[in-house]
């Protein structure tokens, strides 16, 4: 039988577990993780709201599409550290600029995918909806939007990874979260802290991305247009 007792009898694993335990306790990783997920959730939620709203807006006013997408692309090209620093005068230090930077980064993939998804719904479905007597708003909400959901979910999945990265970087400007623990590790040159926290952040990112992937695939099955 596999159990913790068995594992901890192997010396190297025992060492690793002890180290993880030490870092977890001294760096308050439970608290840091909560802070981290708190910033992540707020940032992602707001990005989704703004991203989809802007996507729908530029779909309905195609003249705006190019300038808006180009503008967001410019934001995307600013290195994330530079963006954080640029936001300092506006938001001060801490969680504010971190969340703001995450949002600015994450809007583009969500907006772009929303716009592309709405615009590329197969013509025949839109035509039949119009022929049945749906008005333009109803075509958007009842046909285009549901059929665009898999692509929108794909955009959100990219945003999940972006947000995770920027929130971690927030440790640089005293935002708390797991980035703070990483900073501590770097300042003290404590390799154990760096490795354990780094691995934990990586694992969290993989789990969140995997969860988003599962949702994306479900939506593809439900709303995919190939069938």
């Amino acid at each position: 039988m596999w159990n913790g007792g068995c594992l901890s009898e192997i010396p190297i694993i025992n060492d690793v577990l002890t180290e993880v335990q030490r870092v977890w306790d001294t760096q308050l990783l439970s608290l840091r993780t909560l802070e981290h997920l708190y910033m992540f959730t707020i940032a992602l939620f707001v990005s989704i709201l703004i991203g989809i709203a802007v996507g729908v807006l530029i779909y309905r006013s195609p003249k705006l599409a190019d300038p808006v997408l180009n503008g967001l692309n410019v934001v995307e090209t600013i290195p994330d550290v530079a963006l954080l620093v640029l936001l300092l005068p506006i938001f001060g230090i801490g969680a504010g600029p971190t969340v703001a930077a995450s949002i600015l980064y994450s809007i583009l993939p969500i907006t772009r995918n929303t716009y592309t998804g709405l615009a590329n719904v197969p013509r025949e479905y839109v035509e039949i909806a119009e022929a049945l007597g749906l008005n333009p708003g109803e075509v958007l909400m009842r046909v285009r939007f549901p059929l665009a959901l898999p692509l929108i979910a794909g955009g959100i999945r990219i945003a999940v990874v972006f947000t995770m990265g920027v929130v971690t970087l927030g440790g640089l400007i005293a935002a708390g979260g797991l980035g703070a623990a990483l900073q501590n590790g770097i300042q003290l040159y404590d390799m154990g802290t760096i490795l354990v926290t780094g691995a934990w952040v990586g694992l969290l990112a993989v789990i969140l991305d995997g969860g988003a992937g599962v949702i994306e695939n479900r939506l593809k099955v439900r709303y995919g247009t190939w069938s």
Partner: protein
Amino acid sequence: MKFKKLFNRIESIKLESVTKSYGDRFAVRDLDLEVRGGELMILIGRSGSGKTTTLRMINRLIEPDSGRVSINGANVEDFDPVRLRRSIGYVIQNIGLLPHLNVSGNIGLILKLEGWDQAKIRERVSELLNFVSLPPKSFMDRYPHQLSGGQQQRIGLARALAMDPPLLLMDEPFGALDPLLRTQLQDEFCKIKKELGKTIVFVTHDINEAFKLGDRVAIMDNASLVQVGTPEELIFEPSNELVSEIVDSKRKYRHMEALKVRDMMQSLDSGYFLEGNMPAEIALRKMVDAGLEVAFVFKESGTVGKIPLNEVLKAGNTGKSLNDISKSLLVFPADASLFEALTQLKEEGESMALVLGGEMPVGLLFSDRVLQGLV
């Protein structure tokens, strides 16, 4: 706001010198056509002849460049397009069903937008599914990709009928179906057409379908109307070469004397045969699963009986066996004269017969397929 239909019955639909062009190419050119209330008007022509464009100008999916389209004397441009389209049923070939909605979602879409409550929508959807011979219980919650082509087509028709519109526009509704299914659906549609009592404008490129279903047929070519009339008028008084070419029966029937039934039959799969003592409810499941619209049984008398799906449905759980509900069916030996077989089919008002090679059924003979095969 509760929806009021723009019209409860159709007196007439008039297209007057209607023209539509895309760039320097005319899609429809100076077209005059009147559809009378209660008739089924066929628009037929090659692809690109303007038939679909004409159809779509009636419900304003396409707006003419010039000319006037009117329903009961009122210019359609004076109607709100959304209200106009909700007053007109629309059926298209192939992918008419929205993939993200199940059967009742598709059929009830407009009802929902009109603010009907859930219970009423469910009731109406059941009623419509029964009308198109699909058991509501097993079909309501299915998604389009879980349906066969014929079933999708029936749902498409049910959806078009949801608001009980007095006018139906149909754009090659049976175009993508295999011959057996198409014939069966055409036969059924012929019957429910009378029950519906609706005005129907129907686009097809199949002259046999046109003659089978249409009260009048409008032949279009090159964006213009060539001739409009009953099938008989078109056959006996074709206005030009093109019309006589399309409908000329002499040429079609020319070689028929020499042909045997076997030369023009469709081969038959053993999957179409069911046990005569099978209860109707079991047969129903089998037929629905296999997507069959019609099946056959061997009767004790040694003859073969036909079992249309709608009869099986009607029998339901009454405990009747297939023997009880089977219909008689014309049977021809494979080496019978094709001409005589067709004459007999026409006299009996049937469109299909079973072909026997010796004692064994080997194929099916469809009257309209034969005509097409000979052209």
